[in-house]
């Protein structure tokens, strides 16, 4: 009896990114390569974090996965199908800055989103209400975005994304514009949400704490042109308790990721500290040579 080899894990993958590169042309910079042969798979139900120095291309990768940008080379598949454009029934987005429409109430914002997705009019009201309740904003359903605080606006954006009932959620630094307290709190809520539903989430972030707290796996990316430097697994199950952040495991992971990132950050920021330190060392070495040994 011949053993049929088990097919690759692709059926377990919600998203598969194969050899994706991205290049664009800018009039002042010439040709810029943002991504270089990036490959990764996102399993169903996992929360994957993309972390890397500023401007490295993590958002571009997210946009490619979401079908908003075409890769210059390589292919992305979602649930096994190649991505050719936005897939509103399968992928929902949460962006960093508030993208709620200021001329609609929160409730209407969500109803419009459902309308875009193609949900029949009769269902929209209920689904919108459910999503608002799920994030605890029922009181503010008829308020306008400008009447809400930053944290509430992001929760509303999350509600909008959730109302679309997609399997996949792509989040591009969703909490970056918020203060640390709100950020931490929303992070905890997201962890609870993850445990409750079975969504696949890809989250781009700058924050090490956020990555370690939320992610099942953290993908560390290099500076531009971005490649995958390392992938780190985090075994703790969701929902993660707030005290997870004080555990030794947490610090170790955080340090590990920072160590990986540091070189990339230096490359991006220009290594001011590194260069100054190197100059210092050099100067001291020269001075040391000239000084008579005493």
């Amino acid at each position, binding site marked *: 009896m011949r053993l049929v080899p088990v097919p690759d894990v692709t059926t377990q993958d919600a998203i598969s990114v194969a050899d994706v590169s991205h290049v664009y042309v800018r009039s002042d910079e010439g040709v810029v390569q943002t991504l270089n042969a990036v490959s990764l798979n996102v399993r169903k139900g996992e929360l994957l974090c993309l972390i890397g120095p500023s401007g490295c291309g993590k958002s571009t990768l997210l946009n490619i996965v*979401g*079908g*908003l940008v075409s890769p210059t080379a390589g292919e992305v598949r979602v649930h096994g199908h190649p991505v050719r454009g*936005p897939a*509103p*029934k399968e*992928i*929902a*987005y949460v*962006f960093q*800055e508030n*993208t709620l*429409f200021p*001329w*609609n109430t929160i409730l209407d914002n969500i109803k*419009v*989103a459902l*309308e*875009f*997705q*193609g949900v029949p009019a009769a269902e929209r009201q209920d689904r919108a209400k459910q999503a608002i309740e799920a994030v605890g904003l029922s009181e503010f359903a008829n308020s306008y975005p400008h009447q809400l605080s930053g944290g509430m606006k992001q929760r509303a954006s999350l509600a909008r994304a959730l109302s*679309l009932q997609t399997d996949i959620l792509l989040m591009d630094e969703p909490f970056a514009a918020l203060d640390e307290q709100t950020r931490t709190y929303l992070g905890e809520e997201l962890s609870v949400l993850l445990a409750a539903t079975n969504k696949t989430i890809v989250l781009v972030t700058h924050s090490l704490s956020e990555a370690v707290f939320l992610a099942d796996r953290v993908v560390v990316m290099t500076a531009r042109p971005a490649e995958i430097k390392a992938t780190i697994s985090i075994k703790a199950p969701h929902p993660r308790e707030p005290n997870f952040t004080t555990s030794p495991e947490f610090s170790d992971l955080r340090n590990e990721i920072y160590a990986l990132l540091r070189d990339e950050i230096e490359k991006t920021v220009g290594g001011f500290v590194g260069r100054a330190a190197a100059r210092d060392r050099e100067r001291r070495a020269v001075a040391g040579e000239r000084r008579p040994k005493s």
Partner: protein
Amino acid sequence: MKPRRFDWHARAIRVGFVLALLLFWYYLGRSGAVSAIFLPQLPRVAEKFVQILQSASFYNNLAVTLFELIVAVAIASLFGLTIGYLVGRSRYAVLVFEPLLAGIFAVPIIVFLPVFMLFFGIDIESKIAFGATYAFFPIVLNTIGGISQVDPRFITVSRSMGANEQQLFRRVLLPAALPVIVTGLRIGATIGFLAILGSEMIAGLRGLGSRVANLAEGMNTAEMFAYIVFVIILAGMLNLTLSTMQSRFAGPRSAS
């Protein structure tokens, strides 16, 4: 608190000024220091004012001018909004067309009035065409600006949720650009009105402007003054109407 106080204060000053002016006019007339041809006496003008409000020819002229205005603004809006939308949706088209349109508008279009007269004659068609042309520019420029400057993130997020072009227009572009577009419509209506009056005055057969010009030519200054006062009031009413419509459609923050 401060703006409200200033408003009451300002209104008092304006009313006071107008009253003082009217008093001054009255006494100047009474004193006979100025010839009645240059400055007809106030009671005479008031009398004429009442008279014209009862005359058929006045209402005919009013109707003609208003008709010209409405048709001109309608045409200008149709072209301005459509072209503005089409151009505004394409970044390249904006780069090509916007400076062109802004450049043409920088030349005072009054200069082309003789050409309009040449082509359309001196009756209402030329006034409508001229008024429509004048009003077209602020409408199209504001529409281009409004549509092209909608925050691209709104468009991105809508696309990601599956919006097609029609939904994008109704639910995103239109509400986002509405304040700017409405401002453009308001400016268009205002200068369209001025353009029509001006062209009626320069060479016209019917309409309020033509009547004023005729009266001026005939040295019929009392009646001319009465008409001028009426036209100023009409302009004020038009401004008020536009201002109300603007705040209704574009939010209370935008009107003045």
